[in-house]
């Protein structure tokens, strides 16, 4: 009995000691978390053990409401929804922001819903807007000036990413103040390159095109010399469709070869001018007219949309197109799928004369994150942006990417679609592709991230194992691939659309009509109408609002040097 009571006493003492330790431990909080955190929460927290860079979380947590557009590709794993997912938990647990959505709507309805919401006075704390909305809401006094919070809170990674695109921050700046955070992407990705069937060139003994004269000659020979070898004259030199200026078979690259820049604004003699009404367009139109007349362009292009043109490419009826760097992923891959030997090679836009051609492109900044006027914590947006740039964009850690972007084994669930704070590094693909090419030249993939290491192996499979389907990676990211051409476009061989602001009043009212006129004129001239139509179009363009638009754009340019 004595022994038993002694054991009970010892047990009670141990319990007392443990209770004391627990009480003392719980009172000792308030320590500043280390820059690299093992975040708070239970041991099952998905953030435990991740190497994350986060600031001190808000204490007590703050509330932030937002709105978001989704589409059919936004999917959730079990137990998750738009208001309870890895991103809302990250904002809550890591940043101290209780982040909720006021509403969720299909992408096509977003602008309309946002307008209704704001008109009814139900303004979210943080939301995404386009260029026109940015200007409208800023003028209406609905937005917070983010200049000071950006200066104070933006991390070096955020600053670097936002300045890689030279117009990103300028596009979000009105009257010298920053009103939004631009959602960056690769602007140069819209620049044109020339895609040519290399296997047809080899078969006909044609050298790489060095000038627009070469392009016209290749087009003629592809049409006349039966490059597919089927004994039937059923091939066209160049693909295009009725939309004229798309990312596939778009004519802007062709015009760029004539130093003409349709659809964009650029500086000439100290003024900003509209490319579609400049005299160089005439030369390009005449060349296209001749090509059409001699059967080098599909006679039905005027009624064929991009899908029909894609079909022509897939069937191997077309040997050349002006497109963008990713065209091998679609639709040029279809051509190779039907003919193993089909290989499309990218070339820089050739020039009509000795002056190098410049490939035109426009900024990819289409949206901005803004904070409503009166919201107490505008710096929270900058912290969320920092969280993205520091931990997602610049992190190569698989664990971090898996937790926040998605598990590679479950590719349908793309986690970053749950947050509006998504900025891509404008030059990431160009830098990554350069490193990839260097690794290929050295035969050493050491130091490449997982994605580039994968591309390295795919390209290696093409060059060393004869896997012809791997040509897509070779043609895009490989040596002499399309992305290597974009490096030149970022340098001296590109022309960035000088106008990156929201549509001017007259532009918003008149430009759609003027663009329809332009398309009709181009189609008619190519199909054989007199080139005088172009001169008539230029006159009409200025008379029907163009003069005013040019004036407004130049005023905008003065305010946004």
């Amino acid at each position: 009995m004595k022994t038993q009571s002694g054991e009970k006493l010892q047990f009670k003492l141990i319990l007392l000691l443990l209770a004391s330790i627990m009480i003392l431990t719980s009172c000792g909080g308030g320590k500043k978390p280390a820059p690299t955190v093992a975040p708070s929460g239970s041991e099952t927290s998905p953030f435990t053990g991740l190497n994350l860079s986060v600031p001190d979380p808000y204490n007590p947590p703050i509330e932030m409401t937002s709105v978001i557009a989704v589409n059919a590709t936004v999917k959730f794993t079990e137990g998750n929804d738009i208001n309870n997912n890895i991103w809302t938990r990250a904002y809550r647990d890591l940043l101290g922001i209780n982040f909720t959505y006021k509403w969720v709507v299909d992408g096509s309805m977003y602008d309309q819903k946002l307008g209704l919401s704001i008109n009814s006075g139900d303004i979210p704390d943080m939301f995404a807007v386009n260029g026109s909305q940015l200007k409208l809401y800023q003028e209406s006094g609905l937005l917070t000036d983010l200049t000071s919070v950006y200066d104070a809170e933006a991390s070096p990674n955020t600053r670097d990413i936002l300045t890689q695109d030279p117009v990103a921050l300028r596009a979000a700046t009105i009257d010298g103040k920053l009103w939004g955070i631009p959602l960056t992407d690769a602007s140069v990705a819209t620049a044109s390159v020339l895609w040519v069937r290399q296997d047809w060139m080899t078969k006909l003994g044609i050298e790489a095109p060095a000038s627009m004269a070469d392009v016209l000659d290749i087009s003629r020979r592809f049409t006349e010399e039966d490059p597919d070898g089927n004994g039937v004259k059923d091939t066209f030199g160049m693909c295009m469709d009725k939309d004229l200026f798309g990312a596939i078979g778009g004519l802007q690259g062709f015009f760029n070869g004539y130093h003409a820049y349709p659809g964009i604004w650029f500086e000439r003699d100290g003024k900003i001018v509209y490319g579609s009404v400049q005299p160089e367009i005439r030369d390009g139109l005449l060349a296209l007219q001749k090509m059409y007349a001699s059967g080098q362009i599909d006679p039905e292009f005027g009624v064929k949309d991009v899908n029909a043109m894609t079909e022509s490419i897939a069937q191997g009826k077309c040997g050349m197109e002006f497109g963008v760097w990713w065209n091998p992923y679609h639709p040029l891959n279809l051509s190779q799928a039907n003919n193993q030997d089909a290989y499309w090679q990218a070339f820089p836009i050739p020039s009509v004369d000795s002056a190098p051609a410049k490939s035109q492109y426009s900024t990819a900044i289409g949206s901005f994150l803004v904070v409503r006027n009166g919201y107490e914590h505008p710096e929270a947006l900058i912290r969320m942006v920092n969280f993205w740039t520091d931990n997602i964009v610049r992190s190569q850690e698989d664990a971090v990417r898996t937790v926040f972007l998605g598990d590679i084994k479950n590719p349908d669930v793309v986690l970053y679609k749950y947050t509006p704070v998504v900025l891509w590094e404008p030059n990431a693909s160009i830098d990554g592709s350069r490193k990839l090419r260097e690794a290929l030249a050295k035969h050493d993939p050491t130091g490449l991230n997982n994605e580039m290491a994968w591309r390295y192996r795919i390209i290696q499979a093409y060059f060393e194992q004869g896997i012809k389907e791997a040509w897509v990676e070779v043609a895009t990211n490989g040596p002499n691939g399309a992305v290597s051409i974009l490096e030149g476009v970022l340098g001296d061989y590109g022309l960035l659309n000088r106008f990156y602001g929201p549509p001017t009043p007259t532009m918003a009212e008149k430009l759609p009509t003027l663009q329809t006129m332009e398309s009709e004129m181009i189609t008619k001239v190519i199909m054989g109408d007199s080139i005088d139509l172009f001169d008539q179009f230029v006159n009409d363009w200025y008379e029907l609002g163009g003069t005013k638009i040019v004036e407004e754009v130049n005023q905008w340019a003065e305010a946004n040097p």
Partner: protein
Amino acid sequence: MQKKSKVPLMRSNHLPLILLGAVMTVYGLAAALAATVLSNQAMRGMIAGGVYKARQTAFDQTASLVAGILLLALFIWCAVASKGIVRVGFCFGAMAALMTMLVGRNEMLPVPSAFSGPVIAILVALPLTILFILWACGRRVPRGCRWVAFISIFIVLAAAIFPTYVILMVSKIPPGDPAILTVGKLVDVSTNVIKLRYLLPGLSFLLIAYLSMRFARKNPAMPEG
């Protein structure tokens, strides 16, 4: 069970077998060299991807046709100059020579090159494998030749199947998957293995010819195969 006496592989002389091994080795060497030079040029950006493919295809089609015809003639010559199970083996080898002519003509098979290449490699490897199995099992085949044939079975099969296996693995790995780092090392190995597809069997034939000739010299009283 009656023990059969060993005999050399060839009845009169070993010249056709030596030539067979030499042609296969030279073709393997030339193919490996051309592939290395062209892929190096392409990966360094000295020639465009499409130009690389055109040159590689042109080389493969020409060289495989020439090598295929030569190998076919030599296998037939070898079959005529041998007998028994050795001759049966050469007949299977002649089928491998025919399949060699398909190298570089993947487009003749109605499947993607990721499959047609391995299919052709296996079509070439299977008759050779049967040849070596027959020789390895041939009780009248000199002991050394049987051992080399036995080892060659694995060499031929591995050279055909391993790269296919690796490519299948790579094709299942999505972009960004860290598994590529592990599989990537296998890709390096398999690209070198591919270059040995003709070289090693060619050397096997030369070694077998040498061993058979040595056997014939050491056993002059033995009737030749």
